[in-house]
């Protein structure tokens, strides 16, 4: 498995496929989440607004992980020509080769999520207690990485093999994942932006739901990997 992870990671980096998601994430993160708190009149008010700004920054950096990780997953799933995939699949099994590609995209999403949360923390210039909001932000980022990975897996090959259909349905699914109330990502983001100071961790339900989505989508993808023609 390690050799497969190494192979997929090397292919991701050498093919420069990582650049697009990284730049997209960096751009989106820098345009969003910049709310000012000049209107504060007292130190207490300032702290409250500060906390709100930080929470909305975390929300924003987590939310854009959904499209970015879905894109990264798509890039990983379409990185290899069918013949090369078959050569690697013969050695370790098609399912495992598929899982390795999905894991590499997921790990990339985790790195981006951590970097995004750190950026928000640094950009906020925040004074008060940081640990709890930071953990809450990381929790939301994790949920969004999971949802992004599930969306990217469900709406790309081998589940959806037609290029244009895959792309459009991925975009549609990202929108649904962010705005719909039943989506774990939507629930996590809308959950408690204002009161994030007190809530250290987003409710466990969205997190569990996101995990379940990933397990199901990865399972289906790996199951189909050796069963469908390229």
């Amino acid at each position, binding site marked *: 498995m390690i050799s497969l992870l190494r192979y997929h990671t*090397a292919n991701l980096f050498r*093919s420069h496929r990582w650049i697009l998601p990284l730049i997209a994430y960096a751009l989106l993160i820098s345009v969003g989440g910049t709310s000012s708190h000049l209107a504060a009149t007292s130190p207490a008010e300032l702290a409250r607004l500060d906390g709100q700004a930080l929470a909305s920054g975390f929300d924003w950096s987590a939310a854009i992980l959904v499209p970015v990780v879905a894109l990264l997953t798509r890039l990983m799933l379409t990185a290899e020509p069918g013949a090369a995939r078959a*050569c690697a699949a013969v050695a370790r099994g098609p399912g495992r080769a598929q899982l390795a590609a999905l894991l590499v995209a997921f790990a990339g999403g985790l790195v981006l999520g951590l970097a995004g949360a750190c950026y928000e923390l640094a950009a906020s210039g925040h004074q008060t207690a940081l640990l709890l909001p930071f953990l809450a932000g990381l929790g939301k980022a994790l949920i969004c990485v999971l949802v992004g990975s599930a969306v990217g897996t469900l709406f790309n090959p081998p589940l959806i093999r037609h290029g244009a259909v895959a792309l459009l349905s991925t975009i549609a699914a990202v929108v649904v994942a962010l705005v719909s109330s039943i989506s774990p990502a939507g629930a996590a983001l809308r959950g408690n932006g204002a009161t994030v100071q007190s809530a250290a961790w987003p409710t466990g339900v969205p997190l569990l739901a996101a995990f379940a989505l990933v397990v199901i989508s990865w399972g289906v993808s790996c199951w189909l990997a*050796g069963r469908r023609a390229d």
Partner: protein
Amino acid sequence: MRLESVGKRYGLRQPWVVRNVSQEVAAGRLIRLEGPNGSGKSTLLRMMAGALLPSAGRVTGRPRAAYVPERFPGALAFSAREYLFHLGRIHGLSEPRLSAAVAEWLDRLGATEYAAAPLRTLSKGMCQKVAIAQALLSCPDLLVLDEAWTGLDQAARGALDEAVGERVAQGGTVLFVDHDPARLASQVDERWQLAGGAVRYLPGAAAGGQTPPGVAESAVIVELTGLEAGSLAQLGGLDGVLSVWPDRVADDEPARRLELVRLTIAEADSDAVLRRLLGWDGVHVIEVRHGTGREAAR
């Protein structure tokens, strides 16, 4: 290795490409798969290699396998050498055996000069060499070659022939498809003929059987009219029938009578097959001529 009622179709409403293949594959055998285009050779090869999972049945006891695809587009970001190192590791090799094996196979296939070049800049033949090297690196016990010789220069074809001989001599099984009927003809132990989704097992020249059509064998070409579309598969299954054109038709009208069907029959079996055909209701033989199996393959 055993194939147990193995079948494959690419979707629930799709026709079976191969169906109900049960066979014991012994170690140390050289097996050639034959059949017209679209007869399921590549599908069966990929299932035996483990790149494709069957829709029905199963493959058990598969030894360490390696696979050379029909075309290997070098659309990967690696150089040839880097790709081989990655694939070698995936096949379970570790240093220092890995470096030695990569150097050996690049050299034997005449690809050392291009080892540092990015795969996407390599020619088709050079990419094919990389695909072959990838498979041979790990000395697999099951080597599956899908027209691996196509696009290779003379020297590399010779090197691949030699490598196949070595694998078989060391107790490995080699399965291959190639459009040249003379490929390794004298060393083939088994010939698997695919037609209509089914397989017939014939001994190869090394096991006392006939060489494949077109090498030494001459054939009789028969043209028919009035055959029911649904009987095509049955035709391909008759003893001595080397190829059938068309090899498949749409399934919707099995009773439709085809205007023209062309069969190639091994000369020795041609009389028996003709007698059978004349007995089929509504079938008329419109032409019988002499030809070669090689001609029929086109």
